[in-house]
């Protein structure tokens, strides 16, 4: 246990080590640590912000959903209304069409009846004339009574 020159040499070694640590060891590590701390803090802040935004977005999306539901129900109601309108209109048109068809058919029938009557009348007149001619063959001269025969035929028309 004797104090000697070792003390001074150790003190020099000590100061060199301290100088080295201060100069080369401490600053870069401190920088790395502080940078990482900053990164972590930033990350946490970003996470917080993200959560906040997510909340806002979910609010917005529920709003949009509600709106969309309302619009959809409105559209459905309109569509139903329109459908009943279309059905009514179709019914109406069909009825008109039917009436028109019926009226056409009636007119046709009347026309048919009329022409059938016409034909019948003609035939009846001819039959009548033929019958009269048979009866009056001898008494009536076709040539002398032609104007009479024509008159009868005209009457029967």
């Amino acid at each position, binding site marked *: *246990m*004797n*104090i*000697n*020159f*070792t*003390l*001074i*040499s*150790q*003190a020099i*070694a*000590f*100061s060199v*080590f*301290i100088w*080295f*640590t*201060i100069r*080369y*060891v*401490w*600053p*870069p*590590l*401190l*920088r*790395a*640590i502080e*940078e*990482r701390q900053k*990164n972590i803090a930033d990350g946490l802040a970003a996470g917080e912000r993200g959560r906040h935004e997510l909340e806002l977005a979910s609010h917005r999306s529920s709003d949009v959903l509600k709106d969309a539901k309302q619009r959809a129900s409105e559209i459905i109601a309109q569509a139903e209304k329109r459908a009943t309108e279309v059905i009514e209109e179709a019914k109406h048109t069909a009825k008109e069409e039917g009436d028109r068809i019926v009226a056409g058919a009636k007119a046709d029938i009347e026309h048919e009846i009329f022409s059938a009557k016409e034909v019948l009348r003609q035939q009846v007149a001819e039959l009548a004339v033929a019958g009269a001619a048979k009866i009056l063959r001898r008494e009536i001269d076709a040539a002398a009574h032609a104007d009479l025969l024509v008159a009868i035929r005209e009457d029967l028309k």
Partner: protein
Amino acid sequence: MASNTELTPTSYIEHHLTYLTVQIKEGSFWVLHVDTLVTSIILGVISIGFIWLVVRKATSGVPSKTQAFVELAVEFIDNEVKNSFHGNRHVFVAPAALTIFVWVLMMNAMDILPIDIMAWILEHAFGLHNWKIVPTTDVNTTFALALSIWLLMIFFNVKVKGLGGWMYELFCTPFGKNPLLWLLNLLFNFIEYVSKPLSHSLRLFGNIYAGEIIFLLLGMWAATGVSGTIFGAILGAGWAIFHILIVTLQAFIFMMLTVVYLSMAHESH
């Protein structure tokens, strides 16, 4: 060990407590303990160099396991310094504390290496007799550290408070600025300034030196026979495990005292 003819307990212990010395000049002061100096420098270079190598490639992203380990140590020390030193600690105090803790820890940890095996290796591999591998069992080492810190203390006192401020503190604290008390204050401060480096260095030296002696005494049991060897080995292992605590604790205490002394130098009373 060196001379098998006269292996007595005294010679065994003396052998392990002898330094490898070099006489630089005439006089008892100009002696250099080569073993202490070289071992401590090697340990300092290994430990500080290891940290430096890790730090050079330090990334602020995801750290490697080694970097995380270094950061753990550094942040631990930084926190301790932050708690007792209120100034810009990154300029000097925190890196100095890191150096002291790592270096003293490494030097203390040499105590755990089995002393006779290390002596045998050094003797047969390197041809070195009398190589003490624990630099902190050399009072020169602990005094060198404590006195360097003592000088730094005075330096910071003058730097922060100015020479006048420091003188004021020497004469007017802790009892008051009445001129009658000046002498008492000065005496008190003188005692404080003397006791600080003494307690600082002798605490570390005493603990590690005592640990070393106990290892030597346990090692001597091997001379009593097989049962003594086994018993000594078991006790030696137990002491070594306990010594892990002492080694770390003493390095930590030495560092904390350094930080406290330096922060006291920075703050006015």
